[in-house]
């Protein structure tokens, strides 16, 4: 062990002697490692941000919509009892089948009036959205078709700037509804830019009483472990049974979409990491090159060391240690740079994606193991050359 430390000290001293050369050689490692760390850290962080945002809205249901491109879409239109019939047909495989609507309704309180998007919610809710005041719409509200609504923070602020929305009555599309809660603002601007930050939630049963329109679609929450293909067939069979075999529907697997999204991010990350690996390869070749120069320059020293009794392994270890130190110094610097860029990038991205998790431990492990591997692999040949030098020839040089 003390020998390893002695070789380490020797390696540092020898690299210090050729500062400019060592630094230039390290540059390859610095660039390679920092780019790998940046790409890897950022893509992991972005994935975590997007996933946590999406999961904060709970399970993405299977959504069933009428295919608008068919010849007679009206015949396929959902009927009021479809949700219940589907729920009966699917039985234990689903938590709930929710009909859903979304409409722009005029909303007023006192003299204030505006149009807002009103969307339905059902009994099954596993989102992690928090309320800034009041409570979420619950199963009993759905069962009794209670005339209650939840507001997003921005809607609540428009009508009730003093923050006393809960308990007030809003007039919406001619009916009166009691505000029972206000959603805390959603951190993720990505989501609000997609869905808008202004919305009002209402139980679907309450909404159904105000309209004769068929539902826009059906949201089905399957029990965990239910295979999508199986349940899709059951859904279509049931709907065809009601509407006839010509009716066409689009069944969309929300959870599967999330998985696909994940996969895409992974592919992008892998591609970029491959480019970084090429950079590391080039860096490694640079290290090998400079180590060969070093070995040639120090031939006489190698000859001396061998003549006084250093074994091949001794010489090998000495030079291998030098290339590993070179690679790890470069890799370590690159890692720090990469982490800085990742942290900076993540803080910028978090404006769009919400809170991001940077996988520090993984990053450090990857950077160090890659550096050590590069130093070992590319230092091996020069070290072997040094170790197998003939001491007589070497001393003569």
């Amino acid at each position, binding site marked *: 062990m*003390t*020998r390893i430390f*002695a070789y380490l000290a020797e390696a540092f*001293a020898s690299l210090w*002697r050729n500062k400019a050369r060592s630094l230039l050689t390290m540059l390859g490692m610095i660039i390679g490692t920092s780019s790998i760390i940046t790409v890897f850290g950022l893509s992991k962080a972005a994935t975590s941000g997007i996933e946590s945002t999406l999961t904060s809205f709970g399970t993405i249901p299977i959504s069933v919509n009428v295919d608008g491109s068919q010849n007679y879409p009206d015949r396929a239109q959902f009927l009021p009892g479809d949700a219940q019939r589907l729920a009966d047909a699917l039985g234990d495989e689903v938590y709930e089948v929710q009909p859903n609507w979304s409409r722009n309704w005029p909303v007023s309180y006192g003299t204030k009036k505006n149009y807002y998007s009103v969307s339905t919610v059902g009994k099954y809710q596993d989102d992690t959205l928090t309320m800034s005041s009041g409570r979420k719409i619950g199963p009993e509200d759905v069962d009794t078709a209670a005339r209650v609504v939840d507001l997003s923070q921005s809607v609540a602020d428009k009508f009730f700037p003093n923050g006393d929305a809960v308990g007030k009555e809003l007039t919406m599309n001619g009916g009166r509804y009691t505000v029972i809660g206000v959603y805390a603002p959603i951190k993720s601007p990505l989501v609000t830019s997609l869905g808008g930050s202004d919305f009002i939630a209402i139980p679907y049963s309450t909404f159904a009483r105000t309209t004769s329109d068929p539902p826009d679609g059906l949201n089905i929450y399957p029990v965990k472990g239910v295979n999508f293909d199986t349940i899709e067939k059951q859904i279509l069979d049931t709907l065809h049974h009601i509407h006839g075999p010509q009716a066409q529907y689009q069944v969309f697997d929300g959870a599967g979409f999330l998985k696909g999204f994940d996969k895409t991010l992974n592919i992008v990350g892998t591609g970029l990491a491959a480019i970084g690996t090429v950079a590391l390869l080039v860096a490694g070749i640079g290290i090998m090159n400079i180590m060969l120069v070093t070995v040639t320059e120090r031939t*006489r*020293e190698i*000859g*001396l*060391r*061998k*003549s*006084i*009794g*250093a*074994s*091949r*392994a*001794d010489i090998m270890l000495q030079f291998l240690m030098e290339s590993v130190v070179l690679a790890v110094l470069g890799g370590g610097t690159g890692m720090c740079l990469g982490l800085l860029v990742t942290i900076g990038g993540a803080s910028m991205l978090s404006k769009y994606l919400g809170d991001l998790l940077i996988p520090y431990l993984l990053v450090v492990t990857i950077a160090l193991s890659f550096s050590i591997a590069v130093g070992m692999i590319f230092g091996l040949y020069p070290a072997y050359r040094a170790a197998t030098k003939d*001491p*007589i020839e070497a*001393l003569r040089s």
Partner: protein
Amino acid sequence: MNNGTHAIQLRAITKTYKNGSLEVPVLHGIDADVAHGEYVAVMGPSGSGKSTLMNIIGCLDRPTGGNYVLDGEDVSHLNDNQLAEIRLKKLGFVFQGFNLLARTDAAKNVALPLFYAGVGTRERQRRAMAVLEEVGLTDRAKHKPNELSGGQQQRVAIARALINDPAVLLADEPTGNLDTKTSADIMELFDKLHESGRTIIMVTHDENVARRARRVIRILDGLIVADEPASLIKA
């Protein structure tokens, strides 16, 4: 150190270099014994094979034929790593060009063989100081080679050769890079080492240097042509 056998026994040593299909014989059959405590000069013109012989004696090279017993151990057919271990334990080298590590102080240069022998740091330091004292350089222990004169550098090199208490001290033109005055100092040191019982084999061109030895072996065309007490050399 003296275990009753000879320090060196060479029997019918031959050496042939292969250069492609061309075979170049360098040593044609060397027989020589060196007793423990002897001080031998090896002389011969360049191309005579004396360097090859020294390489073989120094376990840097293997003989093509014959037997070489060093300090009771047959070393004729050892592999590279075994030879390295023999060099580490039984031999000390002094070179014409000193061959010190440039950025390393005298004490650490001297202790280098002990590093490879796996001796701990403190013990290395202690023994380095002891041999530096033997060559009269205690006060230069922390100096780097470029802060030392040629003579002092050679003393450091001699100390390094002595630190493993070798069976044989091999010196290859140890005064070749030194002026006359410094050469005399170094030769005096060798005399002192001889008197303290060291076995010394020295390659030299210089008759004056050779005369300081007790025995002179002359080599010509790969054969020993003379093996005589140094006192027979004409002044």
